[in-house]
């Protein structure tokens, strides 16, 4: 199944897209033959524990899960499977948190954290990956990101090649039409955040573009 693992709704300070607008757009993508099964909302520096998208998810038949994108002193990190235990231990608004500590606490809490858009200049993990710090916990990074600028994907792919990381895909959408431009294809079914964490830990996925999801019959 194909999930966009990285997108932002109006809950993030820099996005103007509502979750429902994203889901409507996905419904229209499906009509054009693309296979998009769900999205994971990764709001900046927060986790909306009380927000429930079940009704919207049912209405549009699109899986909607929640994660987070955190600023750390080693670049931005995506977090999936956030628990109350994790929220109690980490200040999500701390833009200089230690990513090594973040990954450790995430793992202990049944969640997972790994670098977002590592090739991005200034805030990508590539800036730190060759430092003296021990990043042995990193085994996954975001590979395809819909907001990359020139040269950033190349940096990411070199990192993945050099370190042997697995790679996910996400649109990093901040506006409606950007949703699902990059996705992660999972070999297993995912119904909730726990399934997602499990599939990520098993590394049963690959990063794909929206075009790759198109049904063969629909390709002109």
């Amino acid at each position, binding site marked *: 199944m194909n999930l966009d693992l990285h997108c932002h709704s109006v809950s993030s300070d820099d996005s103007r897209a509502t979750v429902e607008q994203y889901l409507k757009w996905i419904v229209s993508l499906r009509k054009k033959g693309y296979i998009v099964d769900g999205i994971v909302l990764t709001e900046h*520096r927060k986790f909306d524990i009380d927000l429930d998208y079940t009704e919207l998810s049912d209405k549009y038949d699109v899986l909607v899960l929640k994660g987070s994108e955190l*600023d750390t002193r080693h670049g931005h990190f995506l977090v999936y499977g956030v628990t109350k235990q994790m929220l109690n231990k980490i200040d999500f*608004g*701390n*833009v200089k948190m230690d990513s090594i500590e973040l990954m450790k606490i995430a793992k202990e809490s049944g969640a997972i954290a790994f670098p977002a858009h590592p090739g991005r200049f*200034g*805030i990508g993990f590539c800036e730190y990956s060759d430092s003296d710090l021990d990043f042995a916990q990193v085994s996954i990074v975001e590979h395809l990101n819909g907001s990359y600028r020139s040269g950033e994907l190349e940096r990411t792919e070199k990192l993945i090649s050099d370190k042997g990381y697995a790679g996910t895909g996400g649109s990093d959408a901040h506006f409606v039409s950007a949703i699902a431009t990059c996705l992660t294809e999972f070999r297993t079914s995912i119904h909730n955040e726990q399934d997602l964490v499990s599939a990520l830990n098993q590394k049963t996925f690959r990063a794909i573009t929206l075009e790759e999801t198109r049904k063969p019959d629909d390709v002109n």
Partner: protein
Amino acid sequence: MSEDLNKDQIDYDKSQLNKEYPAGSFLVTEKEVAMYCNSIGELSEICHDKSKALEAGYRDIVAPPTFCALFVRGFDRPDINLNFGKSGFHAGEAIDVLEPICVGDTLDASIQLSDVYIKTGRSGQMVFIVWEHIFRNQNGNIAAKVRESHVRRE
């Protein structure tokens, strides 16, 4: 200078947070609404023709939803003495329209500092200053909220 800043370390006058200041009273006139409609290309009949607006159930000609943003430009904001960055710019505006605004309405505006936060982008750390402008109509109801963000960067 600001390399290790965290939100609670941003140097500004925190006593200003959520403090509401009156920002003026505005009468919504037909002339202003017409000028605004012309400037943004608003063609809806309820924004131009009083009889059509009344027919549609409004009390008078309806101002376009973004009308309140007009007033925000002229507001004086208290100095929060932010000590960060070398340059700044307007970072965005969001408008919540909660009630129709019609010709003849009187809007009482207030302004408050609703948030100051920090984030990191490609160009380094940035501090965002968010001002919320609240417009109450003659019935005391909040007709619109306009949130403006300004950013300071290293």
